[in-house]
């Protein structure tokens, strides 16, 4: 049995909770500062006024003058999902993340561990974040479980047996199937509007109407298994963050902070013998809300210089002064796979000795014993904001 946890409108709910705004009032996520001026997810009250996701902000206010635009908080939303995934993994479930929509996993391997499906669902309910209105669906296939979760009532998981799947899926709109828009429109043109109508097509007709890519959707409509959940490799999360006593918005200070955090992460990753595959940048904005970006590296690495090349340009996208900068790293990459250089680089021995000296000083006197001056805002008119002392990083061992 596949279990799916569906978190409807999670980014909107998290932003509303943070802003202290009720869910039953007309509200929508505000446009991103660096994106098109269209509103994001909307509450049901806003939808009832004719506002929908993707509508231009001016048109949204024209349709619903009492609409409240809520500043998005993507960092908090991502944290909420990650906490749920970690709680499920702590219960022994091999979880596939479904973005900010929820998660899925095969419950069979953990059923005996938790005393049957009821015990598994109790653990899942405990893992669902409070206040985000999580829904739970259980079915023999991933697609059916996802649809069951979307149809489930709050606090009552919807469990479908194999015999119920086709009957449950039949009245659902055809848009729920993983079909390209063109195929959905082609089906609608000939009167095929529900999953059941598509499931009733013979194989040859399905192939003609939906194409090769749509045959899998046709099989899902008939209750066939489809693909199983693809569990993620639980990441070895590493994070570093810096709090700014005064809001900081200059690119120079953000890059300085970013360099310090990356050096800290790189040192921690090297200590584990791994390498960074992905990074997630997050910032808490001074006037409320947050900003976040994901950075996927082409090759896993623990080299601070390469991490800086990937991360520092993204800091220019931060839209406002911030009070906290946080970098999380997925350090599940292996350090292997790189070819060693045939000719030793000059200075390798010196770097190795310097690194050993730094480690010995730190071991004897603590992290604060060896500091270095870092530039924060070189052009500031206030001298104490120009430079700061930060822990000296360990020189990186020679690694390609």
């Amino acid at each position: 049995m596949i279990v799916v946890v569906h978190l409807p409108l999670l980014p909107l709910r998290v932003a509303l909770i943070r802003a202290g705004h009720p869910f039953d009032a007309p509200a929508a996520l505000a446009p991103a500062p660096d994106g098109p001026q269209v509103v994001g997810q909307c509450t049901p009250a806003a939808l009832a006024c004719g506002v929908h996701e993707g509508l231009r902000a001016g048109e949204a206010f024209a349709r619903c003058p009492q609409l409240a635009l809520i500043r998005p908080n993507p960092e908090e939303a991502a944290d909420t999902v990650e906490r749920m995934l970690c709680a499920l993994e702590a219960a022994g479930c091999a979880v596939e993340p479904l973005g900010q929509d929820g998660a899925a996993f095969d419950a069979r391997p953990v059923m005996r561990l938790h005393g049957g499906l009821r015990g598994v669902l109790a653990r899942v309910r405990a893992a669902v974040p409070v206040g985000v209105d999580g829904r739970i669906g259980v079915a023999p296939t991933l697609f059916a479980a996802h649809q069951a979760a979307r149809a489930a009532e709050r606090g009552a998981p919807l469990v479908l047996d194999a015999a119920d799947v086709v009957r449950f899926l039949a009245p659902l709109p055809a848009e729920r199937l993983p079909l390209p828009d063109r195929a959905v429109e082609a089906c609608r043109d000939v009167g095929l509007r529900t999953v059941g109508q598509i499931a009733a097509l013979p194989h040859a007709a399905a192939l003609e109407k939906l194409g090769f890519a749509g045959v899998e959707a046709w099989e899902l409509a008939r209750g066939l298994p489809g693909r199983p959940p693809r569990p993620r490799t639980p990441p070895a999360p590493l994070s570093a963050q810096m709090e700014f006593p005064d809001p900081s918005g200059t690119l120079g200070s953000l890059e300085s902070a970013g360099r310090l955090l990356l050096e800290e992460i790189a040192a921690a990753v090297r200590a584990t013998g791994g390498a960074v595959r992905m990074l997630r940048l997050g910032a808490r904005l001074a006037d409320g809300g947050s900003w976040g970006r994901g950075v996927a590296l082409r090759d896993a690495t623990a080299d601070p210089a390469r991490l800086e090349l990937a991360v520092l340009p993204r800091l220019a996208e931060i839209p406002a002064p911030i009070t906290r900068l946080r970098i999380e790293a997925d350090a599940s990459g292996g350090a292997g796979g790189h070819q060693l250089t045939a000719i030793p680089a000059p200075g390798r021995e010196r770097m190795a000795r310097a690194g050993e000296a730094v480690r010995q000083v730190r071991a004897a006197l603590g992290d604060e014993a060896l500091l270095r001056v870092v530039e924060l805002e070189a052009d500031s008119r206030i001298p104490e904001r120009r430079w700061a002392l930060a822990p000296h990083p360990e020189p990186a061992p020679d690694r390609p």
Partner: protein
Amino acid sequence: MSTRPIGTPSPLRVIATPGGVPHAVVVDGRRRRVIAVRDDWLVQDRWWTDEPIDRHYHEVVLEPGRLMLIFRQGGDWFTHRIGA
């Protein structure tokens, strides 16, 4: 990750003329006469916060020839000890 700012203002005893021009500075318990005021300027910043900055900086040369940056804010004198 924690950083320590460099050059945070520290209080300083300054003897100034009624017009606000520094005349002598007490450094390490010894009074040093101000030979020259090389420059002075105002810095007004962060007025939008609860802790606005309104400083009158003086770059002074003390008696043995030592350069010092001092400033007055709210009637009190401070230094960053830059150039010391």
